[in-house]
């Protein structure tokens, strides 16, 4: 007994199923920003690959080493930063929807969960920034 046979016995005539248009994500702002959120993966991946390359470059010895300083690289980083911030904000906000705990049998309000996520992001950023800058000379 499948859905097909049930359907055809009750609905005598054929149906029309429109195909999803390829540009469906341009129909609504919400869909568009969802696609931007998914796309953030690409610039972030590129920036991390650059970091990996930077580490690998250091292994070649001091003679050929030069710190990155070109304008195109800074522009690339600024673009990646915009996507990274969009990823962080959306991801940490959505995590507030997903994470659900109870403390003393009372559900923790999702606003508090989101606030703690952003707090953790801030603390981590300060610590990492302090290490990156503090050990630099």
């Amino acid at each position, binding site marked *: 007994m*499948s*859905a*097909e046979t049930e*359907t055809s016995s009750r609905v005598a005539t054929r*149906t029309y*199923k429109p195909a*999803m248009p*390829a540009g469906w*994500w341009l129909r609504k702002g919400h869909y568009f920003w969802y*696609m931007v959120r*998914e*796309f*953030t*993966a*690409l610039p*972030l*991946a590129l*920036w*991390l*690959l650059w*970091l*990996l390359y*930077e*580490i*690998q470059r*250091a*292994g070649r010895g*001091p003679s050929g*080493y030069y*710190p*990155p*300083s*070109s304008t195109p*690289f*800074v522009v*690339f*980083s*600024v673009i*990646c*930063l915009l996507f*990274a*911030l969009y*990823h*962080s904000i959306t*991801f*940490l906000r959505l*995590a507030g929807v997903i994470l659900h705990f109870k403390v003393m049998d009372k559900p923790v309000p999702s606003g508090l969960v989101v606030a703690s996520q952003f707090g*953790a*992001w801030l603390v*981590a*950023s300060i610590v*990492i*920034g302090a*290490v*990156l*800058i503090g*050990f*630099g*000379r």
Partner: protein
Amino acid sequence: MSAKPKAVQKPALAHLFWWFMFSQGGLFAAVLLPVHIVVQGILGPLGIVPVVDRHYDTWISILGNPIVKLYLLVLISLPFFHFAHRLRYLLVDLGVPAAKTVPAQAGFYGAAVVVTLLTIYVLFTTAPISLG
């Protein structure tokens, strides 16, 4: 319309695992990445602040620290499981149903595994482990 043969359905443990990696990678990318881009990608190159990777000696000595190595492994490799998942579904969303197939999954998640192995290799070969 999809006929639904109600045969035995099973929890998809592979999907479960990759989704879990996706969520953890996304979390690490969200919390750790922006400050690296700001400091190492913008402030350092513009010369606004001193940064560890601006001088060879500081950079190579900090890269030798085992805790730094472990941290960099997490920072670089875990997000790639997030990226692999998102980009695979981005292709599905753009109308490429083939991105749902098992070979496509192997390709995308396999790439994340390759990046992980590559990161381990680079971290081990770049600077000798030292506690200094």
